[in-house]
């Protein structure tokens, strides 16, 4: 019975959080946006003390139930392990705790966080690892499916499904990490059930400290037990030492599988007769910084305009190439580059939520895998606050459309040599026409000649750095106007 409840809750949570990472319409964040916010490490990094307190109390009452029904990576491993169980029954056996490995990883995790080598820490953190797997591997598949449906809808003149741009590999380094995480976690789960959670996962180890002292836990009644070992052979945490009637509660994820398996009803989810001291565990709040390899590429090619001789046809439109920015741009709501760096777990949720192709994982050393903005595919639309709505850790804080319109995340810079009125000799002004804050004025290119072709003049005090000018600039592949980020956002 308890197992069924666990499975139902886990299924619902997993389905919701998965859809949250798949969704590109912004509708899921209202339904499932709370799930990332109750994840342990995101709550810690967001300094969401209420959630942390609730999770601590939950663990102290019911054990590591968090790992079974809230952690999406944990549920994912249960699915893999369950699939293996379909082929091979009773495949587990009790194994003693791998203390050295387990605490080694925890120490390494905390140390890397404190020392600022957070990229290693971020890689093993379960929620963001799950996010990277979803956003890098499965969301593209979901979009592929959506686009197939959109093609069908288009043929039937329906607007039920619409095409969205598929951007498969936003960053090669992050993609490789996501694939590697997916393969390794799946393999470990296939072989050893919850082995990852009980050896590598720092959240699992931290909650393990608490769950030893949980009020309710699976308890073996030595009088009823006939030592058949069925519970231990079905324990994916491999933590039931049936011979001694002992369970390693620091590794037990309260999945309730053993309770149902026991023919003698010898296991119950209850308070053990022998009481134990409760002890609270410190949780760490720390800053983050990241290291990694950086990949940059730039290519230049000559753009040519097509001469008009015959009717019809389309001129080639070259893809835009991102300029080299001295300061990276972070989304409105993120307050400062430092705030993102300190709070972001690189779960990629904001990146999957961005409908304009603006956010992508950073490949810079200090901010590896964290969100960064660039405007080759679109620009930060004034009506959109989806990344801020999505962020569970407060790296991008909630922001209203009005606040966003007065938040300066960067400023535009003009590149004379690319500007179309000067290179092609035609009128343009597309940047000024689309600037939502009216920061661009068109002025004569020849100061002595009022009728000369006009070039943009940027009022950087008013510019908010949304990138409309950069994205809509006709100069290709490099725009004649681009945005430099601000380390600390300002309000105008």
């Amino acid at each position, binding site marked *: 019975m308890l197992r069924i409840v666990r499975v139902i809750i886990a299924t619902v949570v997993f389905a919701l959080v998965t859809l949250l990472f798949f969704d590109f319409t912004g509708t899921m964040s209202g339904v499932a946006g709370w799930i990332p916010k109750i994840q342990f490490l995101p709550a810690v990094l967001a300094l969401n003390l209420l959630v942390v307190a609730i999770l601590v109390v939950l663990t102290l009452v019911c054990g590591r139930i968090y790992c079974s029904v809230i952690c999406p990576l944990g549920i994912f491993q249960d699915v893999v392990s369950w699939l293996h169980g379909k082929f091979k029954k009773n495949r587990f056996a009790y194994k003693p705790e791998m203390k050295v490995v387990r605490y080694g990883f925890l120490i390494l995790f905390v140390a890397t966080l404190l020392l600022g080598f957070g990229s290693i820490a971020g890689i093993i953190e379960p929620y963001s690892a799950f996010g990277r797997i979803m956003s890098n591997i499965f969301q593209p598949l979901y979009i*592929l499916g959506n*686009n*197939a449906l959109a*093609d069908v809808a*288009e*043929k039937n*003149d329906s*607007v039920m499904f*619409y*095409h969205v*741009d*598929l*951007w*498969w*590999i936003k960053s090669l380094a992050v993609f490789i990490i996501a694939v590697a995480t997916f393969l390794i976690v799946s393999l470990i789960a296939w072989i050893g059930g919850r082995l990852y959670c009980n050896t590598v996962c720092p959240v699992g180890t931290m909650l393990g400290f608490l769950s030893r002292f949980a009020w309710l836990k699976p308890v073996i009644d030595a009088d009823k037990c006939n030592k058949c070992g069925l519970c231990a052979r079905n324990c994916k945490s491999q933590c039931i030492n049936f011979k001694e009637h002992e369970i390693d509660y620091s590794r037990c994820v309260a999945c309730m599988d053993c309770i149902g398996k026991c023919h003698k009803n010898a296991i119950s989810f209850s308070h053990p007769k022998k009481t134990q001291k409760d002890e609270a565990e410190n949780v760490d709040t720390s800053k983050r910084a990241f290291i990694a390899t950086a990949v940059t590429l730039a290519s230049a090619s000559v753009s040519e*305009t*097509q*001469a*008009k*001789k*015959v*009717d*019809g*046809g*389309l*001129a*080639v*439109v070259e*893809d835009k190439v991102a300029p080299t920015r001295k300061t990276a741009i972070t989304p409105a709501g993120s307050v400062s580059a430092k705030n993102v760096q300190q709070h972001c777990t690189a779960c990629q949720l904001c990146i999957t939520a961005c409908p304009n192709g603006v956010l992508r994982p950073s490949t810079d050393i200090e901010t590896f895998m964290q969100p960064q903005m660039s405007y080759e595919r*679109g620009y930060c*639309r*004034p*009506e959109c606050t989806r990344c801020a709505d999505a962020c569970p850790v407060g790296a991008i804080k909630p922001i209203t459309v009005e606040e966003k319109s007065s938040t300066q995340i960067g400023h535009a810079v003009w590149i004379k040599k690319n500007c*179309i009125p000067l290179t*092609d000799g*035609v*009128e*343009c*002004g*597309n940047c000024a*026409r*689309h600037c939502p804050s009216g920061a661009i004025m068109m002025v004569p290119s020849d100061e002595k000649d009022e009728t000369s072709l006009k070039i943009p003049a940027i009022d950087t005090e008013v510019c908010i750095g949304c990138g409309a000018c950069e994205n*809509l600039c*006709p100069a290709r592949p490099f725009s004649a106007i681009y945005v430099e980020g601000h380390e600390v956002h300002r309000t105008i």
Partner: protein
Amino acid sequence: MAQKINRRRFLKLFGAGSAVLTASLYGCDNKAQKTVMKEKAPGDVPTDKMTYRVNPKTKDKISILGYGMMRLPNIEQKESKDGKPTESVIDQEQVNRLVKYALDHGVNYFDTSPAYCKGHSEEATGIALKASGYDRSKYFVATKLSNFSPDTWSREAGIKMYHDSMKYLQVDYIDYLLLHAVGGGGMENFNKRYMDNGMLDFLVAEREAGRIKNLGFSYHGDIEVFDYLLANHDKYKWDFVQIQLNYVDWLHAKETNPRNTNAEYLYNELKKRNIPAIIMEPLLGGRLSKLPDHVVARLKQRRPEDSVASWAFRYAGHHDRVLTVLSGMTYMEHLQDNLCTFSPLVDLTPDDLDFLEETAKLIVSYPTVQCNDCKYCMPCPYGIDIPAIFVHYNKCVNEGNVPKDARDPNYAKARKAFLVGYDRAVAKVRQADHCIGCGQCAPHCPQNINIPEELHRIDGFIDRLKQGIL
């Protein structure tokens, strides 16, 4: 990266493949015409009832339906969403079939130009006429001196274009040769294209030599050029003139665009001088077949079995000095419907004329862009798909999907239909927000649309729609 592109291309090919399949299964894939064409079964098209008009000079009998070779069917190669165009090619097999069918049903006038269909129309027309098996004397070929680009303004380039036309059309004489779209760019451009280089004199000499049977011009734009050419009729002896005429432009051309001239004036000027008229844009590029629902209902109520388009064709044919009415028929269903309309032409009654004038007033009250999708403006040097944007906008106007206000009762539905349809109709990098307003397109527009201004207006509307601040 390579994987991404392959996948996308695969999807596109797969999509295009199934589109072609659907088209071939259902015969007609043209959404706009779908409703119009359903009524008539192909078996009903008569082969011997075509109405003919007589050319007063040559005494040739010209079919009142002329085949415009500007909107030939393409083998659809839809461009990918990231803006990389793939070359679309004319579906020659289909063109051959259409031309043969037209000839079999009495059509004998074929109008092309060196500029049409990205420059491939003449060649396709020549091949199809040859393949039809009809004798050269059984059909009439019209083509044009389409020297729009300044680098074709020299005498040599003009003569080369004329000779190339004969080569591509596989003919040794041309029945109808036109100075193409005079009026665009005013007298200045006209002089550069035909007078300063002596091209008009050359063409007149060619007519005397018998290699051009009839010499005329097609007119759009600046009325000064039209008046000048007619004033010099005694000198050049125009055998025909091609004008834009339909039941909206008869009296309302100026209303929709003050720079245009009413067809009533153009036609009467020709009639005064006994010059036969050839009619282009009888359907305004299909706009007079894609009408708002209640206008469609009005026309259908009067003649339930006739297509919406048939009204426009009958109107054009109603004028007795009209030699032929051109229609750019892309699909067999267009051709069949038009053949039915003109085999034979049922003349309009005075009542019908009043009725159409009332309809025209209704139509001009709709805020559609006067774009006929002729693609003369294309290619835009900055990659904008100008006609696709206007076509989408007009479609939404007619379907009531251009909300005026967020409080409109169907606002949410209309907004989604407009925005989703927009992304489908036009690749993102070719949308109106990328128009820089350089204005290079505007002089090419035969409808005199201020294209940049219209694009910016539509872009502004779309941006407000996206932001939800309408």
